[in-house]
């Protein structure tokens, strides 16, 4: 807390000024520094793994962006597994429409060819996957599973 703010609050406590006057004076001081800049809370990613796990089945997909801005995303791989399994249960007519629509948007993936055993193999293979992107403006993007 700044000295000015302490003095104003002291004057209010001593009864030298009213609450309204104190409010006006505090407003005139502007936004306190603690409110101007959000406090840097500890990022949960501090506890996250720093790279792909060498052993075991990966549990989460991590996306970390560092640089000017920081973005941390942690997605359970179970979501990917369940989502892929769900595609095998979608009615064929709907699946054809989905594939066609995805193809129009540049994602030519035929989910009809995806079998449950392929999904498990895909998840296991993700353990070895690591994507590192270093952009020209200093941002680093890392994608891995652990």
């Amino acid at each position, binding site marked *: 807390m700044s000295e000015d703010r302490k003095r104003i609050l002291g004057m209010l406590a001593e009864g030298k000024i009213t609450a309204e006057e104190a409010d006006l004076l505090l407003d005139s001081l502007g*936004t306190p520094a603690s*409110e*101007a*800049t*959000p406090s*840097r*809370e500890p*990022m*949960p*990613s501090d506890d996250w793994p720093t790279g792909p796990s060498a052993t075991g089945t990966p549990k*989460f997909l991590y996306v970390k962006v560092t640089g*000017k*801005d*920081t*973005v*941390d*995303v*942690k*997605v*359970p791989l*179970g*979501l990917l*597994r*369940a*989502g892929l*399994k*769900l595609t095998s*249960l*979608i*009615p*064929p007519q709907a699946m054809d429409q989905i594939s066609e629509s995805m193809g129009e948007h540049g994602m030519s993936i035929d989910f009809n060819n995806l079998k449950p055993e392929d999904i498990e193999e895909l998840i296991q293979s993700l353990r070895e996957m690591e994507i590192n992107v270093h952009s020209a403006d200093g941002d680093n993007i890392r994608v891995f599973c652990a």
Partner: protein
Amino acid sequence: MNAYLPPLMIRVRVREAGARGFRLWLPIVLLWPLLLPLLVLTLIVTLLVDLALLASGARYHHYTRLVLGSLRVLAEVRGTHVDAVTEDSFVKVDIY
């Protein structure tokens, strides 16, 4: 059974420079008991449709599994964390 436990709570924290920001705890656990009768009804209907399709010899008769699979996807959302921190603001979303 735990695999089908849907998200119980969503926590959202937003803060911007010069603004107060807010923290939001969304106890969506309260929503599920309200939707349970609807889910049971849906499962009964899909089960009847699947039996009818099976009896008629249709190749596709997995609507019940489709509904259960959708629930599984919803359940697997638990554990998702998204944090975006810039110089003067941050957004954090946690799904429990």
